[in-house]
């Protein structure tokens, strides 16, 4: 029995002519190489185009997903603040007796400081001074998250928050192309851009966000609009809300 170079035994005699034929091959001709290279280029080009298209599409989607997630988190935080606005079991807000405090309050749960700029006041914690001012409401508005400012910086396309912890303005979301608050009273009437703050019972937020980069194919930014609204539950407006 013969053994091949790998030491494997073989009884296949018909393999001999094929090996000889292969040994006689001296490679490709120039023409074959040119044709082969051309075909390879065509295939590679086609693959690159398909991949590039897919990559652009994926990247574009990735961009919008990332800014959308940031925006959703920001929206969630804003809605939480609004739901808790005016929380006041210790009656910090002057002259009020919940749940009718909004009628007589001097310090309003939501104060409108300018276009797309509000301050949300709420006594939600602070009683446990030995535990970092955590715990139940303490009758003061000097703990973090108790005087929250939210504003939209138009030119910079930024949504910012100040949670009154001494850190100043923090970025909540970037690439915000448009942002608006809408204020409603208990009957659902739109209170306009300069609302009577004593009547605010519900706040709606609409924000339009754009992808960080323009789509390479179209050159346009992708955008998505998020919307949510919440009742000021702490003010006794304890009804079902849109989520």
């Amino acid at each position, binding site marked *: 029995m013969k053994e091949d170079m790998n030491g494997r035994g073989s009884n296949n005699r018909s393999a001999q002519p094929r090996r000889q034929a*292969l040994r006689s091959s001296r490679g490709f001709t120039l023409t074959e190489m040119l044709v082969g290279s051309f075909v390879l280029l065509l295939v590679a080009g086609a693959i690159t185009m398909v991949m590039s298209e897919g990559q652009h599409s*994926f990247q574009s989607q990735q961009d919008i997903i990332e800014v959308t*997630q940031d925006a959703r988190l920001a929206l969630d935080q804003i809605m939480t603040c609004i739901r808790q606005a005016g*929380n006041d*079991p210790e009656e910090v807000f002057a002259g009020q007796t*919940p749940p009718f405090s909004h*009628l007589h309050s001097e310090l309003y749960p939501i104060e409108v400081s300018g276009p797309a700029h509000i301050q949300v006041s709420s006594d939600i*914690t602070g009683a446990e001074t030995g535990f970092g001012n*955590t715990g139940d409401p303490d009758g003061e508005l000097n703990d973090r998250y108790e005087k929250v400012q939210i504003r939209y910086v138009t030119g910079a396309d930024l949504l910012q928050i100040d949670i009154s912890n001494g850190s100043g303005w923090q970025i909540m979301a970037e690439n915000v192309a448009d942002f608006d608050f809408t204020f409603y009273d208990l009957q659902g009437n739109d209170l306009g851009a300069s609302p009577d703050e004593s009547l605010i019972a519900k706040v709606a937020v609409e924000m339009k966000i754009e992808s960080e980069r323009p789509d390479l194919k179209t050159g346009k930014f992708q955008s998505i609009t998020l919307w949510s609204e919440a009742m000021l539950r702490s003010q006794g407006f*304890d009804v079902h809300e849109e989520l």
Partner: protein
Amino acid sequence: MAVSPREALLREPIMRDERGMALLLVMMVSVMLGLLGLSMAFDSVNDMTISHEMGNRRKAFVAADLGYNKYKNELRGSQLDAILATVTSVPRYISYAEPGSGTVPFVYFSRDPVTPMEAMNVDFDNLPTLIGTRSVNGLLTPAVGDVTGAGGRYWVKLSDNDDGDSDLTVDADGRFYLRVLGIQSNGAGRASTYGGTVKNSIAVMEAMLERDMTLDLSAPFTLYGPGVNPASGGNLFNGNSFDIDGYDHPGMTLANLMGSPPSHTTFHSGTTTAAIDAIWDDSGAGDADDLMTDVCSDLSGPQAANLDGPITDPACGDASIQDATDNVRSDSNPDATNIFDATYVMTFVENMAKVADIKLAHGTNASGQDFGTDADPKVTYCSGDCTLGGGGSGAGLLIARGRVDFNATFAYHGLIVVVGAGEMDQAGSNVGILGGLFVAKTIDNGDGTWSYGSPAVTVAGNSNFYLQADGIALGYSLMTLKLLSWREITREIEPAF
């Protein structure tokens, strides 16, 4: 001739087989495509996980909100102390250190129906091995929560606030916490950006609620105003068959009122109440002096004795009547003085109209109709003038915003509030009321506020009013709970343990 190692290598058959280049190229392209695909897939899975978590966080909030709304409503009419004293054994599936009793963290820990740690880490659809139990007071849901749908679940717990009595199973001020924990399962085996071990998204909300005790009356018959006028005819009281009894009647029922008694006097209890409380918040004018005079001057002959109770007034022929204005001012009940504010009372009435079980339109003549039972008390709201009688009965809270005429036979167990026109006429009827009655005339000032005027009443026939504190409580416990505080509980605002 010597052969170089390279040539030797080239002469190896396998190295001269150029067809392998195609395989190599395909493999390289495949690896590149594969890596790119993996990268995309990884990013996509990561995005999906984040989106999934955000969605589940929202679902957990909705589950908690569902529990909050359901049980807040169900607390109306319930006995809070009985709930606070009820202990449930809540199963424990994971080990954790409890904060020491009496410590600050324990106060907050004890409000949790189930610990957030368990809520996050236990697959409640495929429960792990039980390792013990935890005793929880005031749990309103089953120990394993109420299921809201696929993967959603919530727990609700009632807790007493620090009301100064050092007893977290007895409420002293009508205030309590309702804490709700909602979860949404992240799904079996689903990875989480929190580290892959969190099985559920959770949301925790806490409300401080108050049972409004403004109408926790102390008499079976309370009149509010600068004076009082007859509702029919020329007198407040007609005949000598009526009975206004200021002794408390604990244990007496609607059936006792309607059937063949033991005599109501066998239920007598208490020593500090009067048959009629006259109230008018005007200390400069002697408070309810004029109202007292109106009542006393109308009592003729033996009628004074029909106003029976522990407290009597010699100046009123020993009738059981008192000016209760100062009592209201000094009442330990923090809501008591709300009764001085007609706007507050009318806001309460308008709120109750929204949640009334039975609504009667102005002009209704409800003959023989039932308005709740002791076992199933109702809120009944009459938007104007109503006539009740004809063998009807009821239990709970009855609010009339106009004039109420009782005719024939009518029995009620609970609290009756007559405002608006503030007129109540029981002329010639056979009426039994066990609990308390409040009559006041309220005047719309046209600017969103209200003020009081003089009510009008006529009591005649075989009309009986028996004080029962439990009956009054039965009525006001049906009021909408007042929301004092609503917070979403997060790790940042809860003392850690």
